[in-house]
């Protein structure tokens, strides 16, 4: 018999049961769907198309009442942590609070109900918005023009690499390598491969910065460019960025800026002024799009003047008559999205930029960096920072000492933190740091929250020496406890059908 849709023991408010899957709640013949009455003649489908093309059985979707659907999904939502519930200091992810006003903007019929193929004269509001956003992003990055098509950071990276390739091709050069630091985010090397380049890794030095001498070693005329994150994934600003830029440019390479960490420096310093040629931005990090449990995002790519002619198209461009139309640059690398990019995410970013403006953006960076440094100094005695120097928007702490002393690892600290009422930081990234705890408080968390977070970290360390088991067992207060990942990978159950087959 099907599971009861009205039982709420899986809601942490009441209990700790597992929530049945929507398929387990399904009852043959039940339905929630209601459609408009149209008056269109209901000719049998097999009279309209060759029956041989038609399925005989409907797709095995769940059969539930609206009431049970609501119960199921509402209970699932209570089993999910989110920024709206509490602090989410997940390093490299910039889990700031995103104002509710932008949710309403993204739902305005004038924006959300516009068909992507609407002719330009009927979608001038959108084209105007995209033009303005491009201008704003160029100003923020110190670049000349931008494409808004890439759907996320990784897509932006790949776009940037294809721009590099187009640039070198145009100069009749066949470069084969792209340099990235060992601290780079995984998408960087993965994108390099998809861009048709070979990855050359350059090590970080004792300061956690790119080892400029080591870099010079690998630089030659096969190098198409370098991808850098600045501040880097250790939360540190690459102080020798000018030297790096000079060295790379000297061999004819281009500098690519991974904008995932822009929140640290927005309004303070611009990638373009540092010497970067290509910049992607994670609008879903710096510019107010909530992460949606893993997306959507947007990864616009801004470029220096010499790369504009290669930008993807079509692009919104101002016409003589004061309007905006679509044009494709002469030597465009082509299209990167089914339509114009993640438009509603772009609209949020434009609104965020308008709202904060010149000074507001700088305040964002200042508060983000202030919060991170406060945590760094406060926690340094218990969780030694990987590199003991001023950080930017995030700090990479380590559990190395704790592990040595008590056997409690970064992972255990992360799990214990959940019981303390906070989401865990990013752990074991960057890979170059042992027992890394990458903490990014963001600017929207208050000093009171920082203190509470620090106290929780300290409590865990204290407790670990007394009773390490406690941390190993954590979390005990969540709807499920630690999950068996090995088992999940050994015998993959990725669908309801896999389960029924498995059991």
């Amino acid at each position, binding site marked *: 018999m099907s599971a009861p849709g009205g039982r709420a023991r899986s809601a942490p408010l009441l209990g700790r049961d597992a929530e049945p899957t929507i398929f387990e709640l399904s009852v043959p013949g039940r339905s929630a*769907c209601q459609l*408009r*009455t*149209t008056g*269109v003649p209901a000719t049998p489908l097999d009279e309209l*198309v060759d029956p041989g*093309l038609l*399925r005989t059985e409907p*797709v095995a*979707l*769940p059969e539930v009442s609206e009431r049970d*659907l609501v119960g199921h*999904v*509402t209970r699932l*939502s209570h089993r999910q942590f*989110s920024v709206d519930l509490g602090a989410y200091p997940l390093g490299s992810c910039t889990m700031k609070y995103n104002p509710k006003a932008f949710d309403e903007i993204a739902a*305005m*019929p004038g924006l959300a109900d516009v068909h992507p*193929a*609407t002719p330009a004269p009927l979608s001038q509001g959108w084209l*105007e918005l995209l033009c303005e956003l491009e201008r704003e992003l160029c100003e923020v990055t110190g670049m000349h023009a931008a494409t808004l098509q890439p759907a996320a950071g990784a897509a932006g990276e*790949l776009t940037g*690499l294809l721009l590099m*390739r187009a640039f070198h091709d145009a100069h009749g050069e066949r470069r084969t390598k792209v340099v990235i630091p060992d601290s780079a*985010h*995984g998408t960087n090397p993965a994108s390099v491969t*998809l861009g*048709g380049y070979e990855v050359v890794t350059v090590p970080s030095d004792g300061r956690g910065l790119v080892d400029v001498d080591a870099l010079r070693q690998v630089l030659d005329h096969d190098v198409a460019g370098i991808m850098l994150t600045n501040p880097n994934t250790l939360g540190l600003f690459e*102080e020798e960025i000018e030297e790096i830029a000079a060295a790379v440019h000297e061999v004819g390479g281009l500098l690519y800026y991974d904008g995932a960490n822009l929140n640290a420096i927005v309004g*303070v310093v611009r990638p373009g*002024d540092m010497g970067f040629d290509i910049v992607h931005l994670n609008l879903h990090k710096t510019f107010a799009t909530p992460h*949606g*449990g*893993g997306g959507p995002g947007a990864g616009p790519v801004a470029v220096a003047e010499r790369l504009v002619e290669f930008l993807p198209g079509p692009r919104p461009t101002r016409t003589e008559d004061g309007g905006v139309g679509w044009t494709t640059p002469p030597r465009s690398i*082509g299209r990167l*999205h*089914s339509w*114009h*990019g*993640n*438009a*509603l*995410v772009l609209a949020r970013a*434009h609104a965020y930029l308008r709202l904060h*403006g010149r*000074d507001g953006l700088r305040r964002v960076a*200042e508060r983000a*960096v*202030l919060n991170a440094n*406060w945590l760094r100094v406060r926690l340094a005695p218990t969780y030694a920072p990987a590199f003991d120097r001023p950080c930017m928007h995030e700090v990479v702490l380590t559990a190395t000492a704790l592990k040595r002393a008590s056997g409690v690892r970064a992972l255990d600290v992360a*799990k214990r933190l959940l019981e303390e009422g906070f989401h865990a930081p990013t752990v074991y990234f960057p890979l170059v740091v042992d027992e890394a705890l990458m903490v990014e408080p963001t*600017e929207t968390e208050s*000093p009171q929250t920082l203190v509470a977070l620090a106290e929780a970290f300290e409590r865990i360390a204290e407790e670990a020496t007394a009773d390490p088991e406690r941390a190993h067992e954590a979390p005990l207060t969540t709807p499920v*406890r630690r999950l*068996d*990942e090995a*088992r999940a*990978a050994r015998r993959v159950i*990725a669908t309801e059908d896999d*389960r029924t087959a498995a059991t």
Partner: protein
Amino acid sequence: MADYLPHTDAEVAEMLGFLGLGGLDELFSVVPAALRLAGGLALDAGRSEPDVVGELEALGAQNRPIGRDLVCFAGAGAYDHEVPAVVRALAGRSEFVTAYTPYQAEVAQGVLQAVFEYQTMVARLAGLPVANASLYDGATALVEGLNLATAATGRPRVLLSAGVHPHWRAVAATLARGTGHALEEVPLDDGRTAWASAPQGAPVGAVVVAQPNWLGCLEDLAAARRRADVDGALLVVAADPIAAGVLRAPGSLGADVVVGEGQALGTRLSFGGPYLGLFACAREQVRRLPGRLVGETVDVAGTRGYVTTLRAREQDIRREKATSNVCTNQTLMAVTAAIQLSWLGPEGLREVATRSAQGAHYCLDQLRTAHGVTVTASAPFLREFAVTTTAPAEVVLARLADEGFLGGVAAAALMADEDRSLPPEVRDRTVVVAVTERRTKAEIDGFAAAFAKAAR
């Protein structure tokens, strides 16, 4: 007034004091002075939330959204299907909206289970055993499909049906600059892929076809499968998820990979994004699957739970050897799709597809018989078809807009200059018309009449 930053000046001062700093500027002392912005950004000063909301409303007022004032007959990969309030209410719950990728599974069972349910539904739509947690959109999902197929076969050559959406083919061409794939187009003959006229050459790694194709025509997947078998290539099908409600599942017809655009599953038209890339594949290919995969397991107490699994495929672990570079995807749209499909149910999905087809055929009948409009291709179709007009397509659409109709999509507007999927002589006079279950007979009658006038 305030912005969204909690710090009072007193608190900032106290924190700076704790850090031994004299001012906020000193936080950036590590940044070479020469690089720091002297004058600040050349942007306007900030403004209040209601001011900005007003600005965005004003921008929206310069668009013509679909609705009572602009009845939608446009499709081309973005469709006006029913989305009920319950889907908006549930998918909009802030726990889903403001969560990150489920890195801490113990407090992410909500998103994880919803994605598990989504994967099941997508796999069943495709008729394949495995589906991932989403990709950016239809076009990039298609490219991931090509990447998987070429990697699996070790052959970079790809046969790409001209029936695949022009934008998707364009994206594939762009990304082939990096992967070096050789994309060779197979022309259409009266709306269907003419495999016989496929370019000759080395054995191909992938054969790609769309069902239905961008002109709305239904393809013969068996023929595509046969062509793939000739070279032992993988068959990649770009399938529409609504059509899947009534058509035989691509998987059951031999597809190794099924990709698609999931917008029609609960996401608004949104001027083209964020949408949802659907991706399913055969079990043999699971270790080549791009993106995230959620799997079921148990916790230390034996309670059922969900985690992201087979992570060794992914960029954060596999780095340059990853199967894909995707990290942030479109999870919120995937959750939305799972809710929408649960709301639809088997009968609802079938009904939506059937009513759309009935509306489209009724519409074409009106256009043809009552108004003598000529259809571009005679192949069978479901909810979308192409007609050839006398006046240029943009002119026709502009006239229709004045009558209150978004009258379809101009084929030429979708096609890159080099695109040959339509004969040059009709290219600029072809309108692709879509009819969904939301269109009433009255709307269709009004549209057909207006179209006939506008098309002259």
